[in-house]
């Protein structure tokens, strides 16, 4: 993967300023995403995992300039897109799409499925009104829905069908890149499998690149080329699927992986889990030094004071941990 990345994320930071107290008398900062660096290569599926609130969605939104970055860069086609205003962003919008967990809340309930899918096509002037029905039919076929669905309303569809519509809408303007934010998390396993297959088919057919945000590690392991693990706004580890699942280096990654249940009663009975104690600390006051030190089973004094450096310890395998640093330096 020596090729020039499709998207380069450099020192991306997103802080939210919130008001606390009954009258909003105190200001505070949520450190949602802090100094995150990674590349996304054309045609790959890069996944982001981590516990709730660790900044996965915020990374996705900020990267698409749907939320203003506090600082840092996102380079796409030679342009730092996070510095663009909405007007100058428009030509890039078409190529950068997003699909959410709950399509019901993002699909306009008063629009038919045909209108939902056709809207971005008209908005970006990719077809005339006369060409539209045929385009919509083709998009619905792409996501495995019959043409008659065009006249239905979102509430008449099942969860899996609505997710197909959301994907068709994202595909409508022929994007290069789609952020899938928990796009399959609310679905039953059997429907989940259908949507995963659909995403894989579309990727093959159109050479799509995915940033796949999910908390189901079994699914992530199945579909990803590379995986990034986030903890409290920072990347803890980033590696290829093989590296990450067979040789996890960061203590947080190890704990996450050991919590994933396998569909195998024999394995489950004998397996030693490394259970993480406690919850993720508040992002309003993240711990100093390594943010994971309050839950890390091997934390040292240094971890409480010094932020571990983001290093590439092996080709393509990045990690931020003092313990790994000592091991690999030796």
């Amino acid at each position, binding site marked *: 993967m020596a090729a020039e990345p499709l998207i380069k994320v450099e020192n991306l930071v997103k802080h939210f300023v919130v008001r606390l107290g009954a009258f909003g008398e105190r200001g505070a900062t949520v450190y949602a995403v802090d100094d995150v660096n990674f590349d996304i290569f054309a045609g790959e*599926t890069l996944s982001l995992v981590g*516990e*709730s609130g660790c900044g996965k969605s915020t990374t996705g939104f900020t990267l698409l300039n749907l939320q203003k970055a506090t600082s840092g860069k996102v380079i796409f086609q030679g342009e730092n897109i996070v510095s663009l205003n909405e007007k100058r962003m428009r030509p890039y919008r078409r190529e950068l799409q997003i699909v959410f967990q709950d399509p019901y809340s993002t699909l306009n309930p008063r629009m038919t499925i045909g209108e939902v899918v056709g809207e971005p096509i008209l908005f970006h002037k990719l077809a005339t009104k006369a060409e539209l029905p045929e385009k919509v039919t083709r998009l619905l076929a792409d996501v495995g829905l019959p043409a008659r669905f065009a006249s239905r309303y979102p509430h008449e569809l*099942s*969860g*899996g069908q609505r997710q197909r519509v959301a994907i068709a809408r994202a595909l409508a303007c022929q994007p290069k890149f789609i952020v899938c934010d928990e796009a399959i998390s609310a679905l*039953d*396993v*059997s*429907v*989940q*499998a*259908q949507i*995963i*297959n659909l995403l*894989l088919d579309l990727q093959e057919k159109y050479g799509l690149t995915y940033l796949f945000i999910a*908390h*189901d*590690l*079994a*699914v992530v*392991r*199945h*579909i*990803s*080329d590379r995986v990034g693990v986030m903890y409290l706004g920072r990347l803890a580890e980033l590696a290829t*699927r093989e590296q990450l699942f067979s040789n996890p280096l960061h203590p947080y990654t190890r*704990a*996450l992986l*050991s*919590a*994933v*249940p*396998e*569909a*195998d*009663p*024999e*394995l*489950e*009975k004998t*397996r030693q*889990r490394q*259970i*993480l*104690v*406690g*919850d*993720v600390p508040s992002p309003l006051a993240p711990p100093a030094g390594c943010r994971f030190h309050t839950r890390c089973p091997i934390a040292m004094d240094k971890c409480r004071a010094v932020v571990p450096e983001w290093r590439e310890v092996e080709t393509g395998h990045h990690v931020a941990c003092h313990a790994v640093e000592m091991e690999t330096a030796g």
Partner: protein
Amino acid sequence: MTAPEIQKPLLDVRGLTIEIETRRGPAIIVDGINLTVGKGETVGVVGESGCGKSLTMLSLVRLLPNKIKVKGGTAEFAGRDLLKMSKSELRQVRGGKIGFVFQDPMTSLNPVMRIGDQLCEPLIYHRNMSKADAGKRAIELLRLVGIPGPEQRITAYPHELSGGMRQRVMIAMGLACDPELLIADEPTTALDVTIQAQIVDLVKDLRKKLNMSVVWITHDLALIAGLVDRVAVLYAGTVVEDAPVGELFARPTHPYTRGLLASIPKLSDERASRLSSIGGTPPEPGRRPKGCPFAPRCALAESICHERVPVLEPVAGHSGHRVACFVAQRQLKEAA
């Protein structure tokens, strides 16, 4: 795991049928479910959403929503029929001998009441404890479910806790009166894997300590693999397969169970390989097909499947394993 006493189940549900009032008239949503739970046994109930898992359990403590009613069947708990008990008897059982944990803690925790007070209420009501004793017990319960600093936490309101902690408070409430049976309806579905693992381990640990029976409702077969003794697979309001957990994973027999298992990504999968999936969705209430409820989605369906409803029958040679499928039963006979 201790061998469950099969002879006299703690909970014995027979022929449970639940109906819903729709615009087109009454429609059956739960169709003659049989389910037993032995003393100290943990039973997993799995199935896709909408197949009637929650309504089955809600009916047992008579908490069904409006327009949804039990039409037939019995549900004996320790020898008494829950479906025929008087209101006052029922109140003794609910939250007392049977503890409940619901999927969404925000709907069953009172948002304007401190969690300590919510925990004390059933103790004062069911156990006639004094306020002071109940307070002590509440702290003990919070410690039991792994909430750090329980002395301070009892004065917190639900919104001041994280999702994982709220779920643990729910479990503490379910356990408050040392129930003989804990019914947990998707207690970890909304939670992170790390918290999920904590809660699964907690329940495993507690059931040993308290010799409690557990019914764990979920759509996640992988999750219950290491947790339960036996699994009942629900489809469209009927039990289609029922087996000890090892047996179910080693010899899934109903086409629906096989489909569910096959759609879970496995450790050994090639990257980005196609997952096998069950096409279509479960029937909606009032639109159940005439024969086998799974027939419209079943790759093995034959003409008999569209005519008659298969019943749960033992899988010969495998004790405790039952399946409701014409074709599977015939194949088993041919193989024997």
